């Protein structure tokens, strides 16, 4: 009880300080001066109610957890398609899912399809980072750098050399992979925290470089007017550029701006399926097993003749190339990119997707990417508190489901006799 009292006073104190700073006082500009404004009486009421709530929930936490122990928690694991009882059903379910993904955009609004495209970008990024963090166990806090490299590769190659999206897609992946390789080579001797800090620095270097190399990248103004992808040379604009035919004329249908959105969405679906296919195979390949083994016991790996540098580098390179894909597509979708899109918080969000989903778990990462991109859209009114909710979600996750939404279920090799 005494212990609880201490922690209750402590927690209430912290809540008081934080809420006072964040809600209790505000800076407003009056003319040329800044003025500190106190919250209204009603807000103070809420603040103290909140503090009281924290205090009492901490004070009586034993009683509360005893009372809630009886409430059954939802069994998320049973929702996973992997848990399907009869294995024969699985390919059919997957096929239905894929068909659904392709048919669905024709039935819903443009905004929904656009949001789905954004979600798919985050799915791609999450899957890529999942290779590095979840499978190989290397904490990468600068992942967004590879995303930026992918995006800028396409933007620059397109605006300087007029290369098409489809030509740039592999180039962007290769370029990002090269940067992954170059960065990975010196830093992979580092472990844990040290690796995280170096990658964090790398992410910042790339962003600052893009910001300051005005002659090439346009600096903070970014690059605009990036070409959209075409379907075998058919453009999705009202009027095609010279020598090209717009899609709607070719098909003999009326122009609709929705076509472009749906087309982008379909490209994203194809890219995600490709990434999923590659990662799935990788996990069953010797390389995937070696990543896992290296994460579990590096010394044993070395004693068995595994070259850890090469194995870690491949993980880093694969993760980076996936981000390159995603970045290239992102640039094509937005039509405009600037260093603003590649700040540290993006890395943090992608990492949060991986952690939230369950490290190493692909279904989990997909689910988490959906949650992380769609929830903020539904909660538009709370957009000011987005980061607050985000933090709350993380705290709740770590408290009740530290293994992630759908913890990893790696495909195990079986010995058949």
């Amino acid at each position, binding site marked *: 009880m005494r212990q609880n009292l201490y922690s209750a006073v402590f927690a209430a104190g912290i809540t008081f300080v934080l809420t006072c700073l964040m809600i209790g006082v505000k800076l407003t500009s009056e003319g040329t001066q800044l003025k500190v404004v106190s919250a209204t009486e009603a807000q103070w009421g809420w603040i103290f109610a909140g503090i009281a709530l924290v205090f009492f929930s901490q004070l009586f936490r034993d009683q509360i957890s005893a009372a809630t122990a009886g409430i059954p928690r939802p069994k998320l694991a049973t929702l996973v398609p992997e848990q399907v009882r009869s294995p024969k059903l699985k390919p059919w379910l997957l096929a239905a899912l894929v068909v659904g993904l392709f048919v669905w955009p024709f039935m819903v609004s443009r905004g929904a399809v656009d949001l789905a495209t954004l979600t798919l970008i985050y799915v791609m990024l999450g899957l890529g980072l999942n290779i590095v963090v979840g499978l190989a166990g290397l904490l990468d806090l600068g992942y967004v750098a590879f995303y930026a490299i992918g995006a800028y590769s396409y933007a620059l190659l397109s605006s300087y050399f007029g290369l098409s999206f489809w030509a740039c897609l592999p180039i962007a992946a290769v370029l990002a992979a090269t940067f992954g390789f170059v960065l990975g080579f010196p830093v992979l001797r580092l472990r844990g925290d040290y690796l995280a800090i170096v990658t964090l620095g790398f992410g910042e270097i790339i962003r600052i470089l893009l910001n300051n190399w005005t002659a090439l990248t346009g600096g903070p103004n970014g690059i605009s007017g990036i070409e959209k992808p075409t379907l075998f040379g058919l453009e999705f604009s009202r009027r095609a550029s010279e020598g090209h035919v717009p899609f709607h004329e070719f098909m003999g249908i009326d122009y609709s701006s929705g076509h472009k959105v749906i087309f982008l969405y379909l490209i994203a679906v194809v890219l995600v399926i490709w990434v999923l296919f590659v990662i799935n195979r990788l996990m069953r390949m*010797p390389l995937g097993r070696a990543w896992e083994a290296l994460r579990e016991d590096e*010394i044993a790996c070395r004693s068995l003749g595994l070259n850890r540098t090469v194995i870690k580098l491949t993980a880093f390179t694969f993760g980076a190339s996936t981000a390159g894909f995603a970045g290239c597509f992102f640039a094509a979708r937005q039509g405009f990119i600037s260093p603003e899109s590649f700040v540290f918080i993006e890395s943090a969000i992608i990492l949060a997707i991986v952690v939230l989903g369950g490290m190493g778990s692909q279904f989990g990462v997909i689910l988490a990417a959906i949650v992380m991109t769609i929830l903020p859209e539904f909660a538009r009114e709370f957009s000011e508190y987005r980061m607050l909710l985000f933090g709350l979600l993380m705290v709740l996750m770590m408290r009740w489901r530290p293994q992630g939404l759908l913890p990893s279920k790696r495909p195990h090799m079986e*010995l058949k006799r």
Partner: protein
Amino acid sequence: MSQLLLDVNGLTMRFGGLLAVNNVNLAVHNRQIVSIIGPNGAGKTTVFNCLSGFYIPSDGSVVFKGEQIAGLKDFRISRKGLVRTFQHVRLFSNMTVIENMLVAQHRHLDTNIAAGLFKTKRYRQLEQEAMDRAAYWLEQVDLLDFANREAGNLAYGQQRRLEIARCMVTQPELLLLDEPAAGLNPRETKQLDELIVQLRDEHEISVLLIEHDMSLVMGISDHIYVIAQGTPLADGTPDDVKQNPDVIKAYLGEE
């Protein structure tokens, strides 16, 4: 006399001012079981670390199959056919037994990424061979029934045997075992004894052994080296060593 497999001369390892291994000489011939014994902290494991490339020896030469290997990277030494186990079991405990065996055969598999993506014929064939080799060695150590279990869930004695089997699938010529009998009960120790002899007699492997269980060491060794405080104290056949007054003094202390 059969062929010389491992020839160590003047091996020395210094950590700053501490002389952990001082001028140790070892010789292991083909199809021989050689043991290193000595009191705790004598530097036995440091010798192993030097031989297997985990440490770079400060001085001395290590010749394996006629080739100087001192200073090579650990994984390169292991690929040459000198593989070790550890004092504490180091399995990939979240992976299954068979996966442990496959990781060890990494370089015998087709690691080309394109081959794995499209499952080429060669890829599948090499994988099947690796599976067969794994199954064979699991049978040798009596673990075939546990092939699809998680390695971390095995009993301690089984984990020890799996570690040896995992080394064996890398197809080594010299196996370095660091206290393999530690923590085993008498029955398991006897099984281990039989397994090591079987490795020598049937699979023509040489074994370099660090062990504290004297009945095991004396029973199976062809040759024994005694190390105390990093310095070689004596060597010879089990009988020589047993009667050596210096060895008795080092182990039992002076009157």
